[in-house]
């Protein structure tokens, strides 16, 4: 009898264990984040997940609207002198940090200084700045010693690195050291007690936040928060994310790669959303070592690349991508076809072979680096190896994890000593859209970005661009920069594809912004 009782109790316990579990808290949305958040300092890294975290917690002086035009955000009014050397900004009333202190001009100046230690546009801007002066608690000026055409563009930079505003006590920390606390004035407050690096991040609605009165537009306009808590969780793979979404364990999957969109479409309660942001993968060649230290060999590869082939291999669905050779974006104000060698979608294999022959290429090995654990670029290396073989080059593809890939990409040695010939990157298209911010146009050689492109002419053109304030002249200079970039083959864009997100039917879609943000969403 007693034994029977134990059996029954065991069965009851087992049955209870498989009863449906209670739902998460109301007004809380759970998000499968695009990557694990580990670093909290938005100036300390260019990682997109830290940038996204920045948009939750911090606010910016200016922000890009849906037409990619800068609009005042924390700023109420601003003006620039006729000689374009004196910018004056007045902050909105009632701005407060999460620690209760008011946002002041001194906080903004300190934050701009810290941001400008790391951001490329900021660095150039500070080269032109004479002084930054707080006129009163809500008004400050940026005084230039020479013209700089991208002050507002820099302060409204949407992607790595945006100029987030933090309290002066934190912003005075040197950029080489991480900030000690996460305190912003943005629409969400970071809950430090519940932060588990790499696993979970929790944000609460900032009750003191006063949104702008305009409707949301891109990253600009009113940041109206419709939920009490946002929880980012990091799930191990897209399949687990899809399963968790289908079963309602998460409300959003922040990033769904285009090649898995189809598999998610079958889930009844799930909605796929095409985001406003786009990604541009690029090929980067090593200018220091053979064979790509020869311009003709680089040009041969440029001729052999078909963006459509790369997009078909990486993305698949033609409606999710577009062929775009304009280095600063096909729809932006700097769009141009200067220097573009591609005629339509087809690769010019014969032209490539001819250039390779002219270069005197004699079979030196080209090493293509391949990060196997990074889905957004999984097809790039195998296809590049195939392209190089098709024009008669000796190719070796070397596979590794992403961490090793980044380390190897930093090595300047010959391929026999662990160096490389072809690597790649995957960029938010915004990060390529300005000649100043586009890291691939770095002309400083060995001291510059991986690939070590060297060109004094390029640096001079970018300096000229920085000093130019006239939009027409800027466009002309951007065309010259693009022309030179293609002649020398600084990098090769591989097409542009749309990013996708997925969410449950009981939550609203994400706002159409170039960065994923969680104001403006609600849950039923």
């Amino acid at each position, binding site marked *: 009898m007693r034994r029977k009782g134990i059996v029954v109790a065991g069965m009851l316990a087992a049955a*209870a*264990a*498989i*009863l*449906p*579990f*209670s739902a998460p808290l109301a007004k809380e949305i759970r998000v499968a984040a695009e990557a*694990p958040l*580990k*670093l909290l300092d938005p100036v*300390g*890294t*260019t*990682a997109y997940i*830290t940038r996204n975290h920045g948009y939750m917690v911090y606010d910016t002086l200016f922000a890009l609207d849906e037409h990619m035009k800068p609009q005042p955000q924390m700023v109420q009014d601003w003006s620039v002198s006729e000689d374009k050397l004196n910018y004056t900004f007045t902050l909105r009333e009632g701005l407060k940090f999460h620690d209760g202190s008011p946002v002041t001009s001194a906080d903004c100046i300190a934050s701009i200084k810290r941001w400008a230690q*790391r951001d*490329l546009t900021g660095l150039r801007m500070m080269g032109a700045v004479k002084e930054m002066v707080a006129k009163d608690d809500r008004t400050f000026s940026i005084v230039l010693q020479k013209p700089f055409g991208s002050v507002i563009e820099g302060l409204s930079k949407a992607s*790595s690195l945006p100029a987030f505003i933090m309290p002066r006590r934190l912003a005075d920390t040197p950029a*080489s*050291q*991480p900030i000690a606390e996460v305190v912003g004035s943005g629409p969400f407050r970071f809950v430090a007690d519940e932060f*588990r*690096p*790499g*696993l*979970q991040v929790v944000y609460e609605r900032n009750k003191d936040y006063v949104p702008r009165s305009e409707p949301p537009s891109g990253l600009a306009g009113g940041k109206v928060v419709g939920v009490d808590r946002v929880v980012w*969780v*990091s*799930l*191990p793979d897209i*399949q*687990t994310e899809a*399963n*968790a979404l*289908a*079963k309602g*364990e998460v409300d959003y999957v922040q990033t769904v790669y285009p090649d898995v969109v189809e598999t998610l479409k079958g889930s009844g309660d799930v909605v796929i959303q095409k985001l406003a942001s786009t990604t541009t993968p690029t090929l980067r060649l090593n200018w220091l070592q053979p064979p790509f230290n020869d311009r003709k060999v680089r040009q041969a590869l440029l001729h052999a690349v078909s963006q459509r082939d790369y997009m078909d291999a990486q993305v698949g669905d033609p409606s999710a991508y577009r062929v775009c050779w304009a280095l600063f974006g096909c729809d932006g104000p700097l769009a141009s076809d200067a220097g573009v060698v591609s005629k339509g979608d087809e690769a010019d294999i014969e032209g490539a072979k001819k250039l390779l022959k002219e270069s005197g290429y004699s079979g030196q090995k080209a090493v293509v680096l391949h990060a196997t*654990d990074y889905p957004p670029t999984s097809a790039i290396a195998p296809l590049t190896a195939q392209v190089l073989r098709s024009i008669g080059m000796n190719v070796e593809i070397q596979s*590794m*994890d*992403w*961490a*090793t890939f*980044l*380390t190897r*990409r*930093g090595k300047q040695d010959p391929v026999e000593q662990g160096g490389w010939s072809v690597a790649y*990157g*995957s*960029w938010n298209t915004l*990060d390529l859209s300005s000649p100043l911010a586009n*890291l691939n146009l*770095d002309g400083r050689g060995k*001291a*510059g*970005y*991986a690939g070590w492109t060297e060109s004094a002419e390029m640096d001079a053109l970018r300096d000229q661009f920085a000093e130019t304030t006239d939009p027409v002249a800027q466009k002309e200079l951007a065309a010259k920069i693009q022309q030179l970039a293609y002649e020398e083959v600084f990098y090769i864009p591989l097409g542009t594809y749309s990013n996708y997100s997925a969410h449950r039917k009981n939550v609203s879609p994400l706002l159409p912004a170039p960065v994923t943000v969680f104001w403006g969403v609600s849950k039923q």
Partner: protein
Amino acid sequence: MHILRLLLARLAGALPVALVVVTVVFLIVRVTGDPATILAGDMASPEVVASLRAQLGLDQPLAVQYLKWLGDVAQGDLGRSIVSGQPVAALIGERIESTLLLSLSALVFTVLLAVPMGVMAAWRHNTLVDRAVMVFSVIGFSLPSFVVGYLLILGFAMWLGWLPVQGYVSIHDDAWRSIRHLVLPTLTLAIFYMSLIARVTRASVLEVLNEDFVRTARAKGVPPMRILSHHVLRNAAVPIVTVIGIGLAFLISGVVITESVFNLPGVGRLTIDAVLSRDYPVVQGVILFFAFVYIMVNLLIDLLYVLIDPRIRY
């Protein structure tokens, strides 16, 4: 006194093993990746990476880094995570609950099921029961744990909807939800382990069943259950306990995979995250921790031998 001497001798013997393990790990993680490049991000300029490397002390010669780390460990300090800045010991402490719960539940589940299965298979040698246990063992032993995990998710979470797909709830917050979240990971981890232990139990019991003293007991009319419990199992226990101990090594590696499949915030997930971001102090600390656990388990097994079989002396 005798046991104490054994303990001290084993611990002294384990130190060089642990040192070799962590030295190899120290070198391997440094050869294959640089955390500064990962932390700085894909688009960081070389100046930023270099300044980060200096800030983290990674520009120091390898020998200097190694000696400093060894000195800290000798003082009980496992260092701080390069990525989060948290003490490594605290990170392990934070993550230990789910790993411990998962490992213990898998261990208990396995022993409670696999030993009787193995005994039944041996007792009913060459019958349908025996074959069924052997088929289960072969399948369970052959399937990688991530395949088992995803199949269980598909069946019990996606199709039947009985259990959650992923995640963890602390036993302190909500015991029922905690159990529900542990059911599938436990099964995933236990199936491989059960296959191993059931096979060894079967073989060990079969061997003892053919001994003269068992035949004598049968001839004397001792009831079958008494023969099994008092004569066969006690004599077959040493190899079974040995394989349970060895199996713990598999369990540890299985935890790393299982925690990733089910998104459990345990030490296994911490290991994978640390390796992928080349968080040197965490990788070294976790490996040292696992080595310590493994050494302790082996020591425990050695002590159990003495209790199970009085003939064993050290």
